[in-house]
């Protein structure tokens, strides 16, 4: 399907919208949620944390498949034989989302922990989480053959459709977590920008940080299960960077990042459909293209302003 002439048309997309609708919604909601939370992730210089947490979530999903096959091989195989609907309704114990959340929260704990007593930096521990999770996911993937495609979809975000229930989970998380962030954005900003000043003024800095880290862990886990680790990492970093490049008004930064995240989720899906390309990669590429355009715009504006300043005379100093 790489032949350009055979590329699906807009009409094809419209005609098949019922099939892809849930996946497009999940892309939009995940992009919006991670885009908004990503502003704190970028400003607090914890970009690598979201990557490590996404990788850990992917390992959690892989482990859920593997452990289910180990513990109940006959039931697991029967699930496959019964078809996707049966297969995607395993017992609660082996529910991939729960494993993804557990692994994400464990990775989040590493971020919260202060490893100074071990004479290590937080970044080095996150590197450990990222590498161990990545290696673990590949190794576990080699042990399970039946879900290899699912696992690849989770690692690289190549799934065209989402699993039943993913939309409801992601939508619920988006409403709750975005709502919380909308109320607490100034408090989270103060706690991140000047933690000492915030603590002195009696702000609950520790509780705010716990909320932020939990919301990162939960949103990354749920979105990784639905979309895959690559686009989740991209959504939690790139829209925020783009918004920060476009505007310096912090309230507007959150709104722009939310909208750009949603746009990347939907736009990437459309590009994937039209170009017959992997969804996660096109969503990441869309977010990257927006960032590149924003950086070019900012560069051009800075040059223009510099030129305008040098040509205006007489030169006056700011008060």
């Amino acid at each position: 399907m790489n032949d350009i002439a055979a590329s699906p048309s807009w009409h094809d997309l419209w005609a098949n919208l019922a099939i892809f609708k849930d996946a497009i919604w999940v892309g939009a909601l995940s992009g919006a949620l991670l885009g908004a939370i990503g502003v704190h992730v970028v400003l607090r210089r914890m970009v690598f944390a979201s990557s490590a947490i996404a990788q850990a979530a992917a390992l959690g999903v892989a482990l859920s498949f593997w452990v289910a096959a180990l513990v109940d091989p006959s039931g697991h195989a029967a699930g496959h034989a019964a078809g996707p609907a049966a297969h995607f309704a395993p017992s609660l114990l082996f529910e991939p989302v729960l494993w993804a959340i557990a692994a994400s929260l464990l990775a989040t704990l590493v971020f919260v922990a202060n490893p100074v007593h071990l004479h290590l930096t937080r970044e080095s521990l996150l590197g450990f989480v990222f590498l161990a999770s990545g290696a673990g996911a590949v190794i576990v993937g080699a042990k399970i053959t039946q879900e290899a495609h699912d696992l690849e979809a989770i690692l690289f975000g190549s799934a065209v459709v989402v699993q039943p229930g993913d939309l409801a989970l992601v939508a619920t998380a988006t409403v709750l977590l975005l709502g919380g962030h909308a109320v607490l954005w100034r408090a989270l900003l103060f706690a991140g920008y000047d933690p000492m000043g915030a603590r002195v003024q009696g702000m609950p800095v520790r509780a705010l940080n716990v909320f932020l880290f939990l919301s990162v862990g939960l949103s990354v886990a749920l979105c990784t299960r639905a979309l895959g680790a690559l686009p989740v990492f991209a959504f939690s970093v790139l829209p925020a960077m783009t918004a920060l490049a476009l505007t310096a008004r912090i309230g507007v930064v959150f709104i722009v990042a939310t909208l750009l995240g949603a746009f990347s989720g939907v736009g990437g899906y459309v590009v994937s459909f039209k170009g017959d390309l992997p969804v996660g990669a096109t969503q990441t590429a869309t977010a990257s293209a927006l960032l590149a355009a924003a950086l070019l715009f900012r560069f051009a504006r800075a040059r223009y302003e510099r030129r305008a300043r040098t040509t205006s005379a007489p030169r006056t100093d700011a008060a």
Partner: protein
Amino acid sequence: MRLPAGERLLSTEGLVVGHEGAAILPPLTITIAAGELWAVIGPNGSGKSTFVRTALGLVPPVSGAITRRPALRLAYVPQQSALDVIFPISVADFVLMGLQGPGNVTLLGGRANAARAAAALDEAGARALERRQLRDLSGGQRQRVLIARALATDADLVFLDEPTTALDATAEHEVLQLIEKLRAKRGAAVVMVTHLVEDGLERADRALLLDRDHGVARAATAAEVRALPEFARVYGRFVARGSEASP
């Protein structure tokens, strides 16, 4: 409401500060009262920051006690270098942070909060900077805005960490005048960590001399601290300059 002059705001009894249970300074007993200006002086690495963090309740003391007046309102003005320039924080947004606290965590108040922030900026002579980015200001302008946030908090006791670092003479003078205003506004006490020993002692009512290497933690009036042998050991050249200036 103006605080009665001399009212005890914070006192320490045999306070020992340090890291992870290890003392770095001898025990210290002081009382900070309303309306006082304190200068905390000492060489680099003398324990000034550790003392301030302990007094603010951010780290536990190794031993001893800290007593604060009930419902004491504290404010902290950080060093400029402690604020990350990656954050796009406008001057108005920064001063608004001064209004946040246990009773106003979310700061969803709107116009009333904005008016209070604007009034604080007016007092600091920084209203014209309201829409500028904090990171784009000169050192002197930025320090005025930092102090404007402390004015907005309406605090009883304000700690300032090196407020005159890297400022030119004019900006330094303006900032020191603003610190006076901070104290005069409602009789608050101000504790200023400073490397400007001369300016600090000249303006302060009381001073705290710290020197971790020689086990010094002495608090007294500014004049008494200047006369201490420990002061001469740490700041010998300043004492010499003072002697030359005397008739």
